[in-house]
């Protein structure tokens, strides 16, 4: 065991059996196993020393530079395009318009409704009307300026509720309603009749940009054999391949997609590599030369997907003691110009239906009704962004729970204790949660660590001048592992070599979340070798089995299971061989830390590599392939009843803020977040996810917003699109709780997206607790908090 590779800084890990609230800190057991240890990320040194090559660092020799001419209108017909002058510019290799697309002129993660190059009309200002490839980026820029486009502007639609009106301009031929979904449980009339208190509230959230650090880049390289190689940072190489092959009009095996190091994705690099991959490939197809498209920051903001804005209306009813009796919700979910990740993939895939399912929160409510409308508009399009429809509804359900608690004069933690999911609770979709429900464990641990009860008494002014008030807030959260479609399988290959070293092939990508560390950990554990014996092969669609996209917090759990199955095939072959060599029955053999030994007589052992070498010589299997799919999802399209996702991660966040009562400025001063992750394969990596997620949720609460005016984005770069810096984020105390998931590898379940969900409402609730005003339209920037305070003051008078 190489000690250098262990990160031994303290991480709190609590298993349910050992859950002892008086002693929160428990060092992970240090044993011979690989799983459960905070192994330093495999990419850490390369990244912190700057030695890892990202796409922008790749040699550009021989490449043409691709550029995109975008629409100047949010909604218009294209009357004519004249590319003559641009084509004549020396150094220009190609200027392409819609008719140049060799295959299907459309791409999309779910529905191919977005043109590679728009021919007849444009639907938002990020739409492509022409593509250019030139010898230099500068010439490509000049060529864009020489293209003349005549538009016939159409009336635009910017509000999902307007889009639904009968006389609204149609953005797509089939109309503006992309999806209408409903959830029906119990009897609403009876439910509200039982209520002592009924509250109705509307919450609204804006478009958000992912603001990943690394600008998008894509390289398309035509090979002599007619294959198109597409390389770039991407979360879903197989989805990119599926689109590029259709756009080029060639079979799947004529497109090869390789993921290269990725500087952040957060869901955004699920969509944009499809867009850039198709466009770069079309340019490469026509010029027969390698083409690279590297987006500038402003182009990323203009062109790529965003987090969906939503208008969320809730009517909630409860008894005096806080028991929830009825929940009625309406979601106006703004899709923007193209379908992207919004629409439903039956039974429960796509961000829209996910939002609907999650809207009532992690609470047992007997009577629930949700109507969810997904509408096209002439804005940028909504795609996947860390939480996939769930961050929005968490903003709504966690705030209304606090508003309800206030109306009933109940402590916010008590109303959650009363209604929160437990084992065997039924969700709004009627799913009975049979296992791995650690919500209350996180609530109790967090309450203790944060010292909620004391702090709840100590809110109020913090300064002599009486300008600043302290407040605390809570946010509960739940999030699925998996994507809710019938197409959610992962494949992995494990290849052991004669010296005991291992190659691991998976299609799961690394975007900073740590998969390239956690997946080899699982592989090493299962084979009984060391972490450093496993090298993970960079995802390449020619080489690795189809793994689906790296989304839905599914990688560790689904791929982890596939790796275990693959590794077991090889291990079985190795143990068989070892059994022959040691003359010990196979079921007594153990493979651990590079040795295979007799459990009853540990003196009798072989080195793993000796056995592997013998297998090689004898022609015994050294390659394993594993496939794993979660239990199949169900969801009735009429009632929204069923088991959409097979397991959920639960958490509780608590935040302390100080609000300046005269200016509305908010400072988040303290933070505790507890998560039930089933099993932390790498506790330090889980901690990293929690801290990063909280920072992201803080940005959603306090400052992030794509500012739109007449369809045009006002804050195209990171000077004006504000994301939190280290100065805005408090110390975060993460606590890991382990309530085993019996479907997960070693009991694990997903953590990737989860941590930003409860953070936003926890901070919003703390603001309300501090200042008495509530911000229901995000972000809660100083001015919005200022007006909320004024409104609250007026209400008191």
């Amino acid at each position, binding site marked *: 065991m190489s000690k250098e590779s262990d990160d031994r800084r303290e991480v709190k890990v609590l298993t349910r059996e050992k859950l002892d609230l008086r002693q929160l800190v428990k060092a992970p057991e240090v044993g011979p196993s690989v799983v459960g240890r905070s192994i330093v990320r495999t990419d850490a040194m390369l990244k912190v020393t700057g030695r890892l090559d990202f796409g922008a660092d790749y040699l550009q020799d021989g490449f043409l530079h691709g550029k995109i001419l975008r629409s100047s209108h949010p909604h218009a017909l294209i009357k004519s395009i004249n590319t003559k002058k641009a084509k004549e510019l020396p150094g220009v290799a190609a200027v392409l318009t819609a008719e140049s697309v060799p295959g299907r002129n459309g791409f999309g993660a779910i529905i191919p409704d977005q043109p590679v190059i728009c021919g007849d009309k444009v639907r938002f200002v990020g739409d492509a009307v022409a593509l250019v490839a030139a010898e230099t*980026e500068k010439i490509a820029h000049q060529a864009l300026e020489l293209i003349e486009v005549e538009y016939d502007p159409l009336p635009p639609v910017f509000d999902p509720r307007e889009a639904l009106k009968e006389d609204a301009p149609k953005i797509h031929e089939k109309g503006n309603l992309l999806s209408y979904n409903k959830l029906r449980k119990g009897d609403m009339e009876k439910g509200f009749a039982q209520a002592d208190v009924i509250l109705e509230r509307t919450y609204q959230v804006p478009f958000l940009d992912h603001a990943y650090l690394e600008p998008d880049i894509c390289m398309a390289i035509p090979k002599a054999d007619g294959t198109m190689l597409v390389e770039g940072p991407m979360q879903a190489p197989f989805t990119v391949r599926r689109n590029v092959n259709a756009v080029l009009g060639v079979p799947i095996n004529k497109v090869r997609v390789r993921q290269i190091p990725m500087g952040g994705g957060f869901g955004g690099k699920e969509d944009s590599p499809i867009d850039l991959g198709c466009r770069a490939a079309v340019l490469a197809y026509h010029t027969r030369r390698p083409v690279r498209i590297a987006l500038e920051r402003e182009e990323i903001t203009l062109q790529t997907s965003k987090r969906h804005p939503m208008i969320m209306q809730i009517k909630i009813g409860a008894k005096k003691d806080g028991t929830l009796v009825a929940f009625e919700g309406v979601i106006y979910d703004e899709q923007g110009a193209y379908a992207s990740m919004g629409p439903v993939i039956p039974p429960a895939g796509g961000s829209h239906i996910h939002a609907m399912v999650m809207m009532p929160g992690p609470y047992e409510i007997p009577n629930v009704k949700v109507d969810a409308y997904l509408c096209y508009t002439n804005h940028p399009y909504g795609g996947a962004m860390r939480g996939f429809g769930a961050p929005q509804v968490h903003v709504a359900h966690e705030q209304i729970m606090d508003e309800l608690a206030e109306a009933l004069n109940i402590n916010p933690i008590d109303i959650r204790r009363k209604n929160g999911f437990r084992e065997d609770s039924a969700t709004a979709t009627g799913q009975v949660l049979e296992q791995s429900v650690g919500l209350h464990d996180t609530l109790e641990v967090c309450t203790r660590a944060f010292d909620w009860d004391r702090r709840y008494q100590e809110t109020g002014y913090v300064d002599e001048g009486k300008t600043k008030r302290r407040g605390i807030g809570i946010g509960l959260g739940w999030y699925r592992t998996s994507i809710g479609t019938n197409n959610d399988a992962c494949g992995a290959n494990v290849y052991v070599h004669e010296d005991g070293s291992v190659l691991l092939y998976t299609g799961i990508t690394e975007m900073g979340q740590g998969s390239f560390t956690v997946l080899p950990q699982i592989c090493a554990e299962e084979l009984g070798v060391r972490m450093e014996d496993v090298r993970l092969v960079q995802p390449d669609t020619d080489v690795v089995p189809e793994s689906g996209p790296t989304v839905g917090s599914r990688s560790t759990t689904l791929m982890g299971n596939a790796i275990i199955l693959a590794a077991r095939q090889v291990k079985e072959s190795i143990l068989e061989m070892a059994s022959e060599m040691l003359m010990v029955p196979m079921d007594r053999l153990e493979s651990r830390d590079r040795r295979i030994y007799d459990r009853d007589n540990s003196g009798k052992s072989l080195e793993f590599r000796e056995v592997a070498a013998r297998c090689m010589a004898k022609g015994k299997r050294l390659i394993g392939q594993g496939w794993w799919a979660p239990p199949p999802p169900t969801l009735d399209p009429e009632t929204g009843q069923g088991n959409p996702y097979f397991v959920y991660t639960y958490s509780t966040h608590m935040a302390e803020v100080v609000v300046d009562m005269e200016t509305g400025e908010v400072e988040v001063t303290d933070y505790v977040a507890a998560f039930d992750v089933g099993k932390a394969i790498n506790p330090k990596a889980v901690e990293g996810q929690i801290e990063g997620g909280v920072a992201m949720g803080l940005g959603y609460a306090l400052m992030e917003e794509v500012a739109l005016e007449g369809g045009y984005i*006002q804050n195209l770069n990171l000077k004006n699109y*504000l994301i*939190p810096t280290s100065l805005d984020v408090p110390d975060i105390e993460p606590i890991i709780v382990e309530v085993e998931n019996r479907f997960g590898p070693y009991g694990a379940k997903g953590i990737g997206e989860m941590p930003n969900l409860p953070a936003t409402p926890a901070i919003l609730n703390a603001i309300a607790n501090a200042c008495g005003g509530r911000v229901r339209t995000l972000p809660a920037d*100083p001015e919005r908090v*200022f007006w909320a305070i004024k409104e609250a003051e007026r209400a008191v008078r």
Partner: protein
Amino acid sequence: MKPSAFEYFTASTVAEAISLLERYEDEAKIIAGGQSLVPMMNFRVAQPEVLIDINGIKELDYIRQEDDEIVIGALTRERDLELSPLVQEKCPILAEAISLIGHASIRTRGTIGGSLVHADPAAEIPLTIYGLDAKMKVVGPSGERTLEPEEFFLSYLTTSLEPLEILVEVRIPVLPQKTGWSFVELTRRRGDFYIVAVASILFMEKGGVCKEARICLGGVGPTSIRAEEAEEILAGQVITDELIEKAGQKAAEAADPESDYHASAEYRRDMTRVFVQRGLAEARNRAKGG
């Protein structure tokens, strides 16, 4: 984006820099810390054909006291001023204001001269200089001249510097003992350009009477302004809470802010009041030695 193509020269003396300016005239831009110029070039807001790098002119990097003045070379880094014991003692408002510029890495490169000639109405140094009777020494082919803030700053991003002139030195009078001062600002996020900033200076006489007040407002119009009517309320008075309240209201009336997606005009105006009141209260406490 990337900047458009430019030629690059280095100068190691002021004379050398001026002769380069004479050669390229208004095609050339001086680069010192580059903390504003380089982003502007990357956005193509500025497209100089020639850059003259004056970072090698070591003779322009100094902070010293001469009689009753602090004398600062134009190439002095903001971080050095922020941490200078001399500035902290003799002109603490400048050190305080500078500490609020962007982030430490920006202040480590950014220079006082660069900030002044850039004349951004949302920048801390120009706003502070407005209240300080500072003198800017500029040098050109025909010699040197000295300008006061009112002469130096013309409007948004514009100074009275001639194309062939370079700012070489800033002279700031030492603040008398017991002078009250404060620099307060409101930002949407830490380290950002301010929405509203207020620099306040209270020159005191015996008996706790304010001889003269200076209130400089930033972010509420196209240039920094002095809230003169608010200043008059305080001059010759023992400063009470009531007077501070009144001065804040007067200052807010003087403000002429615009709305954008960061903040509405209405909010900016009210924040002018709040920050003038807070700034004056803090300045008064300092004047009392509190």
